[in-house]
């Protein structure tokens, strides 16, 4: 699965994208977020307040927990501020 980070999430994690395999501990968006939080202080901080993190799977916003599979594109980003 491809993971993308945007705006201040990208800056804090110092990463624009990465590839992780789909596994039992990353089978859906809820478990992916739990896994993220345990990756270190920067990740813990970024995912500490999920109110300010939006999640898109395959370029569509998701709200509830969403099943993931190999080949999916998951993006984490803050509330949008364009226009």
């Amino acid at each position, binding site marked *: 699965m491809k993971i993308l980070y*945007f705006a201040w999430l990208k800056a804090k994690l110092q990463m624009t994208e990465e590839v992780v395999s789909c596994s039992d501990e990353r089978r859906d968006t809820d478990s992916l977020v739990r896994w993220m939080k345990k990756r270190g202080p920067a990740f813990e901080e970024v995912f500490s307040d999920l109110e300010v993190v939006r999640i*898109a799977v395959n*370029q*569509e916003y998701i709200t509830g927990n969403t099943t993931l599979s190999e080949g999916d594109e998951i*993006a984490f980003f*803050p*509330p949008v501020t*364009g*226009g």
Partner: protein
Amino acid sequence: MIRVQREKFDIGAEIEALTTGRTDIGAVVSFTGLVRDFNDGNKVTGLSLEHYPGMTERELAKIEDEARGRWDIQECLIIHRHGKMALGEPIVLVVTASPHRRDAFEAAHFLMDWLKTKAPFWKQEMNASGEVNWVNERESDLEAAKRWSSDT
């Protein structure tokens, strides 16, 4: 029609292109968003916009479809820039054309309000001391977008 680009755009040329040779359009509304020297009480010296290529176009297309479903619009154009922009430069352009002025006005206002809360763009503002800050989401933008939800 959706365009996401780095380059500046010419408002007059875009409106012209939408209407030239047509005699069935009665009303054209345009909205242009410009880089302002002030935001939330802070002096701003420049702007940088990041976006999510691919998802941006999808979201903008969905917003356009929604507008076309709600109002009688003959033409609809959304241009949104990304990258660095100087003060006074245009960021976004929305143009709607309709036989009726109310449809053109409401559709353009709707497109801007939804775009503001849905299209994956993120602004970074530079201030006079050279600091760069991510712009925060605004409560007023959420309220503005909600206004159109209660219509359905």
